[in-house]
């Protein structure tokens, strides 16, 4: 099966700044993919090139098999982009905005789908409001609706929840999950790593224009930092034999031990018993994507 997105050897520079350096990446159909990286890492540049808003200096990109340059019509028809900036046209109402956007994709009689999208994004009672009269959250919903008017198989969301309240964020994710469930490929950039961890099955990380990590969320979590055991002793000190497992210097009488696998819990408990030490508190800590992200970004 062809990938929904194929990126092959893409580089891009703005003057002397190298925004993207030889990026290659495939995203299979139906995947929920997270593109992560600090500000200025190149995420938005990569999305812009995919969407035809910018042009690569080298390399090729395809959306659903359509080259974004030579077959830009096919590529753009297959792609819905929710931009990072909260942009809107102040001349029009919500309904007009969606009707025009639909028409740009050649769909003139699309009112049923527009009504459906508005209903799902809770915009129906704002349909005749001018865009200027909407709150930031509502404008964000319209941007999502605009990206969906032509029912694209691939949807890219560039930091869609930046500055959005909790209620809308949850509603948005529920909706996007549903779209993914219906077979849409979703690419997400976000600074909320818990969001990416909960939603995305695979993660790519960009750092200074380079792809520094690309794996399933599960593997990244497993491989990078492992599981930790937080341990506070009622009396005594940590047995000498456990010292190599200490991940960070003890603080407030608490030790953080790095576990290679769960079987090591038993080793820890056995050592504690053998040395007549008593544990007052014990907690198993799973790694999260934020730790993985920080660790990868700190590497040279």
């Amino acid at each position: 099966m062809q990938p929904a997105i194929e990126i092959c050897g893409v580089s891009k520079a703005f003057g002397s700044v190298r925004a993207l350096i030889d990026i290659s990446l495939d995203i299979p159909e139906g995947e929920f993919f997270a593109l992560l990286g600090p500000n200025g890492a190149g995420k938005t540049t990569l999305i812009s090139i995919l969407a035809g808003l910018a042009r690569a200096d080298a390399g090729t990109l395809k959306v659903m098999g359509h080259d974004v340059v030579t077959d830009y019509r096919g590529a753009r028809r297959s792609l819905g982009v929710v931009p990072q900036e909260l942009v809107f046209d102040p001349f029009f109402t919500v309904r007009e905005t969606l009707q025009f956007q639909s028409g740009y994709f050649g769909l003139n009689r699309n009112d049923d789908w527009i009504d459906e999208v508005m209903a799902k994004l809770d915009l129906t009672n704002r349909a005749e409001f001018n865009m200027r009269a909407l709150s930031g959250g509502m404008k964000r919903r319209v941007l999502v609706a605009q990206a969906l008017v032509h029912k694209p198989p691939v949807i890219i969301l560039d930091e869609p929840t930046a500055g959005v309240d909790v209620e809308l964020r949850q509603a948005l994710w529920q909706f996007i999950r549903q779209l993914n469930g219906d077979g849409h490929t979703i690419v997400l950039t976000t600074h909320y790593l818990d969001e990416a961890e909960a939603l995305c099955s695979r993660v790519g990380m960009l750092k200074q224009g380079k792809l520094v990590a690309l794996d399933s969320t599960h593997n990244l979590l497993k491989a990078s930092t492992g599981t930790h055991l937080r341990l506070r002793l009622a009396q005594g000190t940590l047995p000498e034999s456990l010292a190599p497992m200490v991940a960070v210097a003890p603080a407030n009488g608490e030790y953080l031990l790095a576990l290679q696998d769960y079987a090591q819990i038993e080793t820890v408990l056995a050592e504690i018993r053998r040395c007549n030490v008593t544990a007052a508190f014990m907690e198993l800590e799973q790694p999260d994507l934020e730790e993985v992200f920080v660790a990868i970004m700190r590497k040279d």
Partner: protein
Amino acid sequence: MAAFATLFRKEITRFWKVSFQTVLAPVLTALLYLLIFSHVLEEHVQVYPGVRYTAFLVPGLAMMSLLQNSFANSSSSLIQSKITGNIIFVLLPPLSHFEFYAAYVLASVVRGVMVGFGVFAITWIFVPVPVQSPLWVLSFALLGSGLLGTLGIIAGIWADKFDQLAAFQNFIIIPLTFLSGVFYSIHSLPPFWQEVSHFNPFFYMIDGFRYGFFGVSDVSPRLSFAIVAGCLLALLFATLSLLKRGYKLRH
């Protein structure tokens, strides 16, 4: 085709929603010009034999308003979209550069012709002007508004801020229109300035347009037509090339 039609409709809707500013205000301004100039100069100037100065002025004012508003339509729409960022709404869909050009320029033609006709209609109440050759009138109206709509696209794409667009408008478009023979015949100028006027394409638009009304002009309407059409074609290809390259639109 549907994509072009939508962008065209959107551009028309955009200016029509603010029609006080985009249509009625320029018509009123032209009427004020007519009232003041005719009051001051009517008794002193006769440009063509048998044609009153006020009547001479009407086609010039109509054409000047048409040209300025055609330019304003495409240029202001593009710069506003660029500065507010909503230009991406037309860059993300599969619109070709030709559809993009055609939609913006035709919307400019519609607004320009609407304003030009408005000026002609409102001044008719005060100065009924004959129309000897409607075909020439229409030809020059369409060519002129198309040319200025195209220049508006170039300026709108080139300018990064409103100040640059204002410079384009105030230092290029307005001097070229004012010095093109709106208020006078170039035959009334000293020989040197007559020669200079021949290098101003706006002169041919107004001269040819005026020929359609009075059957009298400074140069042959066929020559004017050829020059204006040539300029339009050159600018059209230049603009299509800019759009195809994504100049200042796709980075």
